């Protein structure tokens, strides 16, 4: 059995009086495309921030690539790629400069070639000299995706990676992620685009009000119904009719 890429046990996160995460437990085996779903405010983004060592948990155990996320966040972020919920590259760097900056911080070899690859992949060559603040949302999302992929990490955390991308690049990104899955990379995906997620994910967890309400293999859980129907049924109480 493969070593778990992510291990979460009885994870709790409390903000003042709000329980953002309440006893969350799951494991993501290495080489798995793992989906994390839930309605708005369910605790997905908090979970992602804890997993990447940006926010400490209130209690519980979190290990990513064998590293404790509570105190080894920097090492975790060295090894993983992250696409945040909001695309926010630095305003006053150009797309090219931001990728150069990321590559320098991450001590990537052969920087120029790797930047060129991603500029080509996302068709950013013509806008590579434009300041990030002047790029469209979709372009900024492409820049953030490139920054997450540039060091070819073994584990990716993707929070709504398809948002702001047009259908062409949604398709292109999906194909690339499938390639990564074939290569045995681990991917942790948060998304509301359930149709896309069903095609990509092998295992999943559904969170609502900070608690895990369903988890397991996507094939098993969606044997009787598609992911969207399953999701609506699981969180149905909170979905306005």
């Amino acid at each position, binding site marked *: 059995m493969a070593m778990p890429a992510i291990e979460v046990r009885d994870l709790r996160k409390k903000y003042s009086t709000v329980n953002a995460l309440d006893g969350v437990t799951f494991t993501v085996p290495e080489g798995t495309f793992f989906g994390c779903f839930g309605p708005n405010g369910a605790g997905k983004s908090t979970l992602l921030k804890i997993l990447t060592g940006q926010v*400490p948990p209130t209690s519980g155990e979190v290990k990513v690539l064998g590293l404790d996320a509570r105190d080894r966040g920097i090492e975790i972020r060295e090894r993983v790629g992250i696409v945040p919920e909001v695309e926010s590259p630095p305003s006053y760097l150009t797309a090219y400069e931001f990728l150069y900056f990321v590559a320098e911080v991450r001590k990537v070899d052969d920087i120029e070639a790797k930047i060129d690859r991603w500029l080509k992949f996302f068709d950013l060559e013509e806008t590579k000299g434009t300041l990030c603040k002047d790029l469209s949302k979709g372009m900024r999302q492409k820049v953030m995706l490139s920054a997450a992929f540039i060091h070819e990490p073994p584990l990716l955390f993707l929070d709504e990676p398809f948002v702001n991308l047009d259908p062409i690049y949604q398709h292109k990104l999906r194909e690339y992620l499938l390639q990564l899955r074939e290569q045995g990379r681990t991917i942790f995906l948060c998304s509301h685009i359930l149709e896309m997620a069903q095609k990509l994910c092998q295992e999943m967890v559904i969170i609502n009000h900070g608690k895990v309400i369903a988890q397991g293999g996507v094939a098993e859980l969606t044997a009787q119904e598609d992911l969207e129907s399953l999701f609506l049924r699981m969180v149905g109480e909170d979905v306005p009719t």
Partner: protein
Amino acid sequence: MLREEYRLHISYSSARMFLAIPVFVFIIATIMSLTLSNIQGSIGLKDLVTNLNAGVFLYGLSVGAFGFLGKTYVERRQGKQNFIVAMPALLPMSYCATFLGMFLRDVIFYLALMLLPAFLGLLAGALVVHHSLVSCLVVFVTMVLSFLFGVSLSFAVSVIGSRNRYAFAVLVTAILALLVGYGAFRLYGMETILPSLGFQYCLPPFGSDLGTAMMFLVLTILSFLALTFLAVVFVAESYEGESGRKKGPQPDKLPSYLPRFAFARSYQPLLAKEFVDLLRSGTLGKMTFTFIAPLTFLSFTTWYVNNGLNVPVGFNTVFYAAMVGFFGVMLYSWLTNMDVVDYYETLPVSVPKVIRSKLLVFLFLTLSISTAFVLMISYLNNETRLLWLALPVLFVTSVYMVVSMSYLTGLHPNSFLFSPDVLFKFTLVSLLPDICLTILSFSVDRDPLVTTAAILAVLGFLAVCTYILYRRLDRKWAGTGFN
């Protein structure tokens, strides 16, 4: 809008801490009212009232300066929080109406925050020591008038400044000329500059000319209304501003900047990026202005005290060095306010590391300008013999202040300094050594040996504090996020 402003302020700390501000003002005003007869032993009542209103006027000026910010202010955001003032683009509201709303909100909010508790404190003290309640009311009305005049003047000038830089320069020059006319040449009284003072001076205990007092009252109110009207009329209906202006392709600066910071090892890319940000965002120009303006003001004030008021205070190079060190800390706010830092969350970079990179940039930028200023002052005052002491004072205070600020406020000084507990701590750590060094600097020529030893002792203490706070940056900020 008022509710948003209140919620914003309590979000910096807590409702209790925020409400401590008016309580604190009330207590200070009560103490001042109770000890007024003692205070009058050192400063005359008229000078006291004049200085009080000058302070309130400056307070008003600082409140009303938001017109400068144009769309940046309208779209003001704190992290991911939006405000109702960001709505004109989405709702059928004009920018004029929105700015007028913001202006009235600030007038009410800051009157209630400071002036009202000050008045109540004055009144509470007056009831105990039997000061005239009518006089208290007159003082309060004068303060309100001074505040309104300041806030409307600042609002009008800043709005016009945001439309036309030349008009702004003309207006500021005219205001400065008015100040010089009074300060340097006594061509007219202070009430010509601040008509609210005319109202106060014509009423007891300074005068008993009710008719002229009413004239000044009406004049101040009309000035307030006229300036506000002018500002609202000049508010641009469609702000593009810096944030709305798109630039064409830019030459790649970052890769060429990197080799210059090779000495900084793991900080190399962060420093290179900070300098690219500084140049492209226009912050370098704003920082230079922010640094030079108070230095010019300081030089003018000391000159005015010595020559305008004929008070022989020994402002020497050591004094200026200490002041420059304390002023410089404002630049740290600019460095942390250039851009969002959310993207650092995706990188193997910690908050303390980014703080340290900003501290390094601060040192690169300020020490050269500060040193040049102190060298110039020492040369102009024929005090180059004091440089051996002044320069260490400058370097130690500069580093101490910026490290204290970064320790207390991290990457968000503009937010945290609104928190009363942080503001209190910062005031404490900055004011005490500042007062010590200022007082000691006055005795450098009188008792050089003892004074120098005392100044070096203060510097040693500040250096130790700096070291401790710098080492504790990690413990304080490592567990926090960038947003």
